[in-house]
């Protein structure tokens, strides 16, 4: 997988928990343009362990001098966001992937309804640039816990005015998804990015109101959960890899020198799918890609976020 070597050009503390990072290319060339909603995977070296996290690009898709991401500090996780917050300094070098879009705007939509929860605002930051440029009909509904968590709401308000509607929980603001979805004109597409329960609630509300599936768009990256150690046997490579509790199966295979396929590393895209031969325990699926039936069948696994509670898992790789 090809990478771009970048340098941290600026770090801005946006809220108590969110930092905004500006990257420039080390070779001084222009970045590729991207489409609103794209993300990159950032590789970081945490005490010798390589961790890769996906972050939405939030700058202007047409600006090629720099890329922008925002990272929310997650204390109860495997240390990627904490590393970005506490260790990374201006001038440091990093590797990122080329942008990939799993959350693209539907160009035939007559109206775009964007729904963001908390840090889920980031993919919409680049999308609103595309929508403004195309003079598209859209609204952005942005819910967050308290005024101090409303990253970028002032900046967005200044750019798009009353197309932004905010809901501040601590001030009693409540985003009623069903009410919002029940008054949209024909031809509307809805997009949601935010905490898991919000994404699920939006999809359920849209379905219950009879929205067609292809008008409902969501993006939810899952951080690989920790768990118990287990062994993976790779049938083609003919090696065994131990997955320690704090590493994902994909990371453990990479650390062992295996060139495993991946794209989003968040259980969303399906690129890393592996065929399961057998296991002496249970698969613990954490992805949003496989259907419930596929998860129950136990013939496939997404090693970027899923793991197994077993002694040995055999997969084709």
């Amino acid at each position, binding site marked *: 997988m090809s990478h771009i070597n970048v340098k941290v050009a600026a770090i801005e503390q946006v809220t108590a928990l969110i930092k905004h990072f500006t990257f420039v290319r080390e070779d001084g060339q222009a970045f590729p343009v991207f489409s609103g909603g794209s993300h990159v995977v950032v590789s970081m070296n945490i005490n010798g362990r390589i961790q890769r996290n996906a972050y939405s690009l939030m700058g202007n898709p047409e600006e090629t001098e720099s890329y922008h991401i925002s990272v929310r500090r997650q204390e109860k996780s495997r240390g990627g966001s904490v590393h970005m917050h506490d260790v990374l300094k201006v001038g440091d070098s990093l590797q990122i992937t080329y942008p990939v879009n799993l959350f693209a705007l539907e160009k035939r*939509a007559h109206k775009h309804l964007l729904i963001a929860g908390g840090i889920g605002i980031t993919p919409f930051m680049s999308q609103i640039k595309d929508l403004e440029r195309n003079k598209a009909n859209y609204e952005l509904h942005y819910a967050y816990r308290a005024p101090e968590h409303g990253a970028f709401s002032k900046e967005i308000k200044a750019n798009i005015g009353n197309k932004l509607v905010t809901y501040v929980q601590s001030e009693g603001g409540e985003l009623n998804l069903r009410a919002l979805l029940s008054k949209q004109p024909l031809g509307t597409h809805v997009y949601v990015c935010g905490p898991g329960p919000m994404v699920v609630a939006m999809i359920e509300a849209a379905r*219950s109101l009879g929205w067609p599936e292809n008008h409902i768009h969501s993006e939810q990256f899952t951080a690989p959960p920790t768990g118990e150690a287990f062994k993976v046997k790779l049938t083609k490579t003919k090696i065994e890899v131990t997955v320690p509790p704090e590493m994902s199966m994909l990371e453990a295979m990479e650390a062992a020198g295996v060139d495993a396929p991946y794209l989003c590393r968040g259980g969303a895209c399906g690129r890393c799918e592996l065929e399961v031969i057998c296991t002496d325990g249970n698969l613990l699926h954490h992805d949003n890609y496989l259907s419930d039936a596929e998860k129950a069948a136990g013939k496939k696994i997404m090693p970027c976020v899923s793991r197994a509670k077993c002694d040995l898992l055999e997969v084709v790789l």
Partner: protein
Amino acid sequence: MERGYWIRSKPVYSALVWQQQANAHLVLVEGSAGGLAAMKLFQQMLPQQSITVIYEIEAGDADYTSALKKVVPDDLQVLSSHDAAMKALEAYLPKALMGLRIYVAGSEKFMWDIAQVVQQYGVEDADIAKELTGTLARSVYCVHCKAITHNAHTNIQVCAGCGKNLFVRDHFSRRLGAYMGLMVDAEDPGQIPEIEEIYP
């Protein structure tokens, strides 16, 4: 009909069934057979949301209007011409909201005329429930002069645009709402196969 042969673009239609998860319902039916299809629909458990029925029925056809008046709970519009029915649809759509379920029963021309109108509002034809009733008559698109000839009942149809004898294929265009028609005697002028009514 050749066994084991199928062109994927040929639409498959099925009986109308209410979708209970919805914001509102719009039913459009054509002719006697379409009226009966609407009556069949109202034999099923009625959904909670508002229901509008647009019924196109021309004079002289067996008319289900009085029966429909008894079962349609909210809004029944009876129109005596195709143009009037399409105008009623165009009047309905601007205020329609996402979650509108659309059900159509009638000829293929009726269904695909509707599909072309609602497509302008961002509704895909795949999201319209369609039941073929009354006739198998086809609209035929001439690949030579690009004219569309309606109401073809036979395997070979004279093009209304250029007068060529067109073989009516199963290949269907959703954009045009018509089957492809090709000149049948291009290689042997005047050699026309037997003309049979296969789309009654």
